[in-house]
């Protein structure tokens, strides 16, 4: 029972984690893409559709990643090349994604989907208590942890990561040093899009293997909030995502037990708890200032 709860928590947290880590990279490069929700839902519909057509959830995942990246490329072209307003463009991307996915997915509604298999390693998975938790979850759960570790290593231990952070801190200086600001931002935006697409595919292939219109249900927005409250640090994003997952599962169990608290209040608990905890850990203003990408959302046009 206890192991089961932990696994459902991980399942609730994983899509948030994947989308947030992707957006974290985008924001560290100084770009604010509010279109996470739209890219996620596009990933969800693509993943579902391709898996349904081919029977392979992995092809669905791959297609979702590609579509997420392509969708973000549209955002990149508008904001980086045509220098449109990032906030407005991101919102438009979300609206476009929600509408387009609803249209594309019309025929998928009510169809049974393809579910990704859980990992099974003989002996290890059969261990009592922890076997399923550590060695028997869906493959994307492990991908999400590797992704977090990889992004943390990339940002703070590699030269390319340093370059990316420098662009987010001061794009004018980075340009003056001869760094290709726009090119690197394109890559970062596409990485964020790919992650959002993957997170969407997780929803429609693992979390609930079916297509429901608007099935992301605001998770893209939560992912955005997590990035900010985690002060742009990958491991804090993980903590935030799991906290959110834990409280959402916890309040479901509490509702099932029928304790005398209005269900609306319980439903809002995950949001409240996540915000409170992340605000507490980011109350060190100095640390927040140092981690906040100073050129976040500011358009960059080099003088020629």
């Amino acid at each position, binding site marked *: 029972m206890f192991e089961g709860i932990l696994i459902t928590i991980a399942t609730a947290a994983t899509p948030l984690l994947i989308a947030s880590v992707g957006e974290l990279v985008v924001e560290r490069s100084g770009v604010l893409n509010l279109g996470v929700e739209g890219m996620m839902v596009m990933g969800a519909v693509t993943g579902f559709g391709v898996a349904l057509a081919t029977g392979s959830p992995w092809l669905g995942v791959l297609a979702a990643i590609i579509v997420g990246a392509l969708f973000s490329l549209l955002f990149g072209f508008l904001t980086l090349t045509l220098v449109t307003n990032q906030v407005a463009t991101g919102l438009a991307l979300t609206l476009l994604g929600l509408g387009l996915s609803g249209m594309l997915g019309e025929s998928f509604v009510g169809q049974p989907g393809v579910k990704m298999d859980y990992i099974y390693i003989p002996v290890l998975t059969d261990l009592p208590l922890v076997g399923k938790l550590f060695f028997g979850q869906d493959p994307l759960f492990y991908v999400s942890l590797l992704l977090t570790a990889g992004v943390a290593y990339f940002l703070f231990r590699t030269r390319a990561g340093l*370059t990316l952070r*420098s662009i987010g801190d001061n794009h004018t*200086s980075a340009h*003056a*040093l*001869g760094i290709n600001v726009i090119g690197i931002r394109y890559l970062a935006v596409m990485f964020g899009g790919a992650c959002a697409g993957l997170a969407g595919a997780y929803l429609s292939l693992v979390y609930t293997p079916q297509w429901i219109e608007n099935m992301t249900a605001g998770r893209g927005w939560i992912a955005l909030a997590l990035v900010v409250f985690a002060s742009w640090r990958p491991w804090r994003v993980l903590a935030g995502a799991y906290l959110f997952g834990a409280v959402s599962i916890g309040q479901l169990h509490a509702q099932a037990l029928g304790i005398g608290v209005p269900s609306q209040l319980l439903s809002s608990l995950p949001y409240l708890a996540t915000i409170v905890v992340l605000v507490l850990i980011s109350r060190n203003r100095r640390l927040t*200032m140092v*981690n906040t990408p100073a050129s976040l959302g500011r358009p960059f046009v080099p003088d020629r």
Partner: protein
Amino acid sequence: MDTTPLANGRNLLEVRGLTKIFGTLKACDQVDLTIAKGEIHALLGENGAGKSTLVKMLFGSLEPNAGEIHWNGQPARITSPGVAKKLGIGMVFQHFSLFEALTAAENIALSLADDTPISTIAAKARALSYSYGLPLDPESLVGDLSVGERQRIEIIRCLLQTPDLIILDEPTSVLTPQEADKLFETLERLRAEGKSILYISHRLDEVRRLCDSATIMRHGKVVGHCNPRLETPSSLARMMVGTEVKNAERTTAAVRGEELLSICGMSRKPAGPFSMPLKNIWLSVAGGEVIGIAGVAGNGQGELFEAISGEALQESADAIRIRGKSAGRMGISARRLLGAAFVPEERLGHGAAPRMRLSENLLLSRHTTDGKVFVGTGGMVKSGAIQKAAQRIITAMDVRKSAPDPEAAALSGGNLQKFIIGRELDRNPAVMVVNQPTWGVDAGAAARIRQALIELARAGSAVLVISQDLDELFEISDSIAVMHNGELSKPIPIAEATLERIGLLMGGAEPGHLDPAKEVA
């Protein structure tokens, strides 16, 4: 005046007819420049003469409209700073190009070749910085460093790339005289190693001491070449400005009147993670005198100004007294009503609202103090009176503008500064506090502003001038105090102040309280 062109094989850089046009303005017009191997070449000119535009084209951050650049005898197209770096051109920027949220070592790493192992950079930077006499701690965050320390990082970062041509854009404006000396030694060493240096400065003494040849620009054109060692500062200034530049004159000695502004043991906690605390500051400014506050930028001068002007309130009302009244808990308008006037460092956005007209800017700062004159019954603005006052200021300060009542942002820096200073002078303030009165202002306008400040003091007001420009402070102050690390030294009377003594205090040689009597004895 003209130097003969050096033999071609010895020229590192030759620029012919380089032109850059912004809209209708020719920022650089047919500029020729030749830099030989192993020389320190000065580029002189007033603000807006086109020096920065020229070097930005050489460094690839601006694209010329016409003209050619030859590097080592070969035609070169420098399309980006990356290309410039590959050719062997390094640049130390006037406006810092550092990343505040990264450490010094990370900042340096970013400009080195991609294959430099990231772990060795800190040690390398530390070693190099000590060998050049510009010590720095590679692990510290740039946001925590003073402007002088940031300048060191810029210089070290440039040197680590081992460029053949180093462009330095006003490198000494944020260094103490002693730090500047260290830099000059470094530059002379690099010259001995056969490197070339293009040195931009408006400090003519430095140029005469350091540079082998000079190119002088005015209004985007090259107006002359010379050997600065054979010139005097005034002959160089004449070439830059085109006319004689008069220094401000102190016609009479200061007569110390009654105390009009006093700061008593004021302290202030750092306002943000990257700002300086103020530590137990005592200062008294009397009517009739000009007190100058020197210091390397970022040592608390900005915080001091905010505290005096009322942008930041003090804990105790007695920490600041204006004309005998405790003003520590008063806001800006209340302090202005006591007869004080303030001119902040940043002209656009702080001293003036950029997109508002001059007359509107006048009303913004004086609607309380001159409410009766400018605002009528029911809060209606009296535009006639404001226009008249604006015109009076424009005439008094010789503000040059293109339209009758232009937006503040449309004026050049010097003319806007004249207007902002004139706006306060027009009130005849009893206490005038100015932060960086002539920063980025051309020589003619600067002289006008300095003269106006001296005249105000001689008419009986107390004047406090915070400036990084030591020449300016020596020109106008009756005493000079030095800020270092949030502490303020005792004011040193001008007769006893020497460049060396002020410089030592700026570097923090002796925090605070030098006893002038002891030193004389």
